[in-house]
């Protein structure tokens, strides 16, 4: 574990003289395990590659020889794809958006598997808690919806669709257009990436606080009672994390679908 504890604090329990080893931003910095050229691969990078591998292998196993009556992994794969299609794609884009299904399925399951690593033993780190990774995904989505919008509606037309809400009186436009431009073109990628990142960061810090508290409070005194309580809360927080992980993957994907559909046609 990369958690930094002072060298004199090997026995960091209650009443042993060491302070509580609180989680800090240092817990999110990992030394690279190996370098290829000048690119270092640490734990978060390797987890990212592992999750991509898991998603690819799962969907290949499920669909490499699909049968009309699904068996085994194909069942699960179909459930996953139909969930993304019926809950995320169809409500936002309708039937004509079906060509975006592979992209959205990959996005959803990639983010979800990465998030799940936050509660898997031994791994115990949600890769999206390093800000660079959601930024990379958001960059793809931003280039996608800006490029599609400019291609389908022209630069002026797309800017008009983004910045002028339909039915707004002309006298308010000098105030409204800069605000809407700032909000839709500059703030959207920021909030999209920070939403995913901050959810995973906060969840990981919560888990760290209660896990460290369980260990720290474990002393042969009243501390055992506190430690047991902290352990129970740790389990509850893990359950909350399960919900938050799936929810954040869902939100990222559904917002991507919304932005892409907004690029095809003006919002109504």
């Amino acid at each position, binding site marked *: 574990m990369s958690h930094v504890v002072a060298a004199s604090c090997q026995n960091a329990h209650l009443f042993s003289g060491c302070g509580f080893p609180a989680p*800090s*931003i240092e817990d999110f910095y990992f030394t690279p395990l190996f370098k290829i050229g000048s690119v270092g691969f640490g734990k978060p990078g390797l987890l990212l590659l592992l999750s991509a591998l898991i998603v690819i292998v799962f969907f290949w196993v499920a669909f490499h020889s699909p049968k009309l009556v699904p068996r085994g992994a194909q069942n699960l794969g179909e459930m996953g794809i139909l969930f993304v299609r019926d*809950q995320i794609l169809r*409500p936002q884009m309708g039937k004509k958006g079906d060509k975006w299904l592979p992209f959205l399925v990959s996005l959803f399951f990639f983010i979800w598997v990465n998030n799940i690593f936050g509660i898997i033993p031994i791994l115990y780190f949600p890769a999206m808690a390093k*800000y660079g990774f959601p930024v990379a995904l958001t960059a793809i989505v931003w280039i996608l919806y800006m490029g599609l919008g400019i291609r389908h509606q022209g630069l002026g037309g797309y800017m008009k669709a983004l910045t002028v809400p339909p039915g707004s009186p002309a006298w308010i436009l000098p105030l409204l257009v800069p605000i809407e431009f700032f909000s839709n073109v500059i703030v959207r990628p920021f*909030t999209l990436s*920070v*939403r995913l*990142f*901050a*959810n995973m*960061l*906060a969840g990981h810090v919560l888990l760290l606080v209660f896990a460290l508290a369980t260990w720290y409070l474990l002393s042969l005194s009243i501390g055992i009672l506190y430690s047991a309580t902290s352990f129970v809360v740790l389990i509850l927080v893990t359950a909350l994390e399960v919900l938050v992980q799936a*929810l*954040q993957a*869902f*939100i990222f994907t*559904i917002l991507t679908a919304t932005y892409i559909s907004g690029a095809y046609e003006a919002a109504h």
Partner: protein
Amino acid sequence: MQLAMHLHHLLYVAAGAPGSSSGTPYWNHIINLGALTYGLAAIGPGIGIGLIFGNTIQSIARQPEAAGRVTGLMWIGFALTESLALIGIAVPFFIK
């Protein structure tokens, strides 16, 4: 004047000894600014999330057959509102 000094000393002791990190260097010994930031940032989203869930409960009570659609929209609204509070908890980590 004396009262202010006593109050200052009280806060100094209550906020924990020197050695508490984070917050700007100027106010380190009085209060942890990162925690204060998050506390203030959570007011708005707290009200917002309460509104979202309250309205969802009301709408399902009025029209139970719309529960599926309304619940889906509720989750979207919840995540968008929650993200503001979470930006508040993440910012003190990377802005010193």
